[in-house]
């Protein structure tokens, strides 16, 4: 191998080690942050609502809401459930959840307006 080729090969291999190393470090830090956030049931519900995560890839909505009940007051978890059901387009289940909250209007038209307020 002649001298010039040696220098180019060395430069490329150093650049490759540097680029791969830096990407791995930054990527692993970002991944660690999202993994830590994923332990929070509110984050998991939010990720499903924003369709960042497939709803089948995370614990069920009810399991997450149960684990939330220790930190968030009772009606809040039920309203979050209603919001999640509306965003998933499960209007029949949302109607049941709305009636359980004893809200004044739970008819299909109002549920449609609620969904529109969440998913413009």
């Amino acid at each position: 191998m002649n001298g010039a080729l040696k220098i180019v090969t060395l430069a490329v291999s150093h650049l490759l080690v540097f680029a791969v190393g830096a990407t791995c470090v930054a990527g692993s830090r970002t991944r660690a942050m999202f993994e830590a956030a994923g332990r929070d049931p509110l984050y998991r519900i939010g990720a499903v609502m924003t369709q960042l995560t497939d709803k089948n890839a995370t614990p069920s909505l009810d399991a997450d809401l149960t684990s939330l009940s220790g930190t968030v007051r009772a009606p809040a978890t039920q309203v979050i459930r209603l919001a999640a059901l509306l965003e998933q387009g499960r209007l029949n289940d949302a109607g049941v959840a709305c009636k359980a909250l004893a809200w004044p209007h739970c008819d299909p038209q109002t549920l449609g307006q609620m969904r529109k307020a969440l998913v413009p």
Partner: protein
Amino acid sequence: MPPWLRGWLGRIFLSHALALIGATLAGNAYWNAHRASTESIVSTITRKPLADAANLAFRFGSIDHARVLLEELQRTPSDATLVSQEEMFNALRLAALNGEDQTTVADSPHIRSASLACRRFRTSDCDPARLQALATKFAQERSTSRD
């Protein structure tokens, strides 16, 4: 220096190790420079269920439910750059629930806290009278949604 590091192969190994150390430092520096935006994304996703639920409860639910949700949202930690605006809107919604849009500004704790939150992200248009008018709009939005 061990003998295996003295040859050209050893020098190549050492220089690659140095490149790797440099890469670790650069990766960490890049992460620290962009950490705020990642935290902002995580915070927005975490707040979304409560923010949506508070929005629903305020527009369609009972006063008690709306108040609980808005207070829960205020308690949830969030990213500093986004929080002030949301904090202002929450305070204005709480003011609308309490009927503070109909009282004098001096008797209105939520209009005052909305004004404080407003000043953190704006330099103008934060006077209490304007915010009170905004709270009235929120109250109208609530009554329209419930008709």
